[in-house]
């Protein structure tokens, strides 16, 4: 019998102390190169990109492991899945891949070296989906390391993730038995505008809207039959939007029946793919503010099965389990969303909580 884990945080963001520290994990040729700083160029937060009190004495918030642990694990979290960001989409494919490789080496060395039954961190293998061959190699390089429990790619892309050029990457993830997480990347790269109607002028619009962007990839993966090809493939949409899943998926259901003849390889009603193939991390910048409305909305979205608690520590929208549980989740849904869904997804067997 699997022990029930303590609260699992499905997404937290460690970072190097200073942007250039990443070079220590790169080969000699790459050390001579220049690449974006970690901070997001567009839409700086009006106050701070980071939650109050998370900045260590030296270095960026999220760079001091001791502080990270003491703050994050204070409120009942027992295990945290680390998802470092990778400076935006690089027009130089190899540079983008090297940033991913260096990030993985750094994560393994600094954050995952003592993973075991007592290890409280797990990590994500960052790969560059615009370099499918390189991504496959990188997944294979780390897939046997017990600390890595998923692959991670940016939300921003030049083509949605159902398109055929990405298939080798997802295939490698499937062979390694790893889910693929999708999260908005910071930094400065050659991303397309963050909305389908161009650039908002303010951070607040960006912040309000981008949590809907997961659907571009989810609808693409379904429409191109990726889940039909790879029955064990799982995606984790790690950047909010969990409360909008069904609203968008119902539209996909409607259209699927109307244009089945164009994509006959999509065998099932689109919502049928969710349980086996998709999970969604919560954010405290969404969800109703009323307890009864929340209970109804969990039901509408199959939240008890599809949602995962995530802290997003130490970003400005950092939410402790207490903060995200306000209004309160019904008890059974809480158990699943804050513990069991992530434990099942990531194969976590940790001690029974006190």
């Amino acid at each position: 019998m699997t022990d029930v884990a303590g609260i699992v945080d499905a997404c937290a963001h460690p970072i190097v102390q200073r942007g250039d520290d990443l070079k220590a994990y790169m080969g000699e040729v790459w050390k001579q190169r220049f690449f974006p700083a970690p901070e997001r160029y567009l839409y700086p937060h009006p106050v701070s990109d980071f939650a109050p009190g998370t900045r260590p004495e030296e270095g960026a918030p999220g760079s001091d492991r001791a502080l990270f642990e003491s703050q994050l694990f204070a409120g009942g979290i027992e295990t945290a899945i680390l998802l470092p960001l990778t400076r935006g989409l690089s027009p130089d494919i190899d540079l983008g891949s090297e940033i991913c490789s260096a990030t993985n080496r750094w994560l393994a060395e600094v954050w995952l070296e003592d993973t075991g039954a007592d290890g409280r961190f797990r990590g994500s293998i960052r790969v560059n989906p615009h370099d499918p061959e390189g991504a496959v190699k990188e997944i294979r390089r780390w897939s046997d390391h017990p600390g890595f429990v998923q692959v991670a790619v940016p939300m921003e892309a030049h083509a949605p993730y159902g398109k055929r050029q990405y298939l080798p990457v997802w295939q490698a993830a499937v062979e390694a038995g790893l889910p693929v997480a999708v999260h908005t990347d910071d930094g400065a790269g050659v991303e397309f505008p963050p909305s389908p109607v161009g650039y908002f002028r303010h951070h607040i619009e960006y912040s309000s809207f981008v949590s809907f962007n997961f659907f571009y990839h989810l609808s693409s993966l379904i429409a191109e039959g990726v889940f039909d090809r790879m029955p064990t493939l799982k995606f984790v949409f790690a950047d909010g939007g969990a409360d909008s899943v069904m609203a968008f998926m119902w539209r996909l259901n409607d259209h699927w029946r109307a244009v089945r003849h164009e994509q006959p390889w999509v065998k099932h009603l689109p919502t049928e793919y969710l349980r086996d193939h998709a999970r969604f991390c919560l954010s405290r910048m969404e969800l109703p503010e009323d307890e009864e409305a929340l209970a109804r909305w969990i039901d509408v979205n199959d939240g008890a099965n599809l949602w995962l608690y995530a802290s997003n520590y130490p970003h400005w929208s950092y939410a402790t389990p207490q903060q995200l549980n306000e209004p309160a989740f019904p008890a059974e849904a809480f158990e699943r969303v804050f513990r069991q869904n992530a434990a099942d997804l990531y194969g976590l067997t940790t001690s029974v909580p006190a």
Partner: protein
Amino acid sequence: MSKRRVVVAHVDELAPGDVKIVPEGKFGVGVFNVGGEYFALTNYCPHRGAPLCRGKVTGMTEATDPYECAWVREGEILRCPWHGWEFAIKSGTTVTEPKRQVKMYPVIVEGDTILLETGDVR
């Protein structure tokens, strides 16, 4: 409810691929000739109530491999004129899941006359 038989058409008037909508029942009944056999479907789509039998008689695609499909069952498929749902004419069921069913009626040929058997009492 007693059964009645309604004349649909002379066999020469309903060639393979044709349909005739007979004003029977609440919404009408479409009588189709599929390869020389006759099938009658209620003219009401179970999705949103469109006049189903005014849709297109066609074939369908079948996926052989991802991104590869074949064209099959030409003349056996009816696409709803509104949302394009595909129905297999011979069985009245949708091609897509979850399966929806259109009510069907028996069709009888006596000599050169095609007759529809309905359950309506008029």
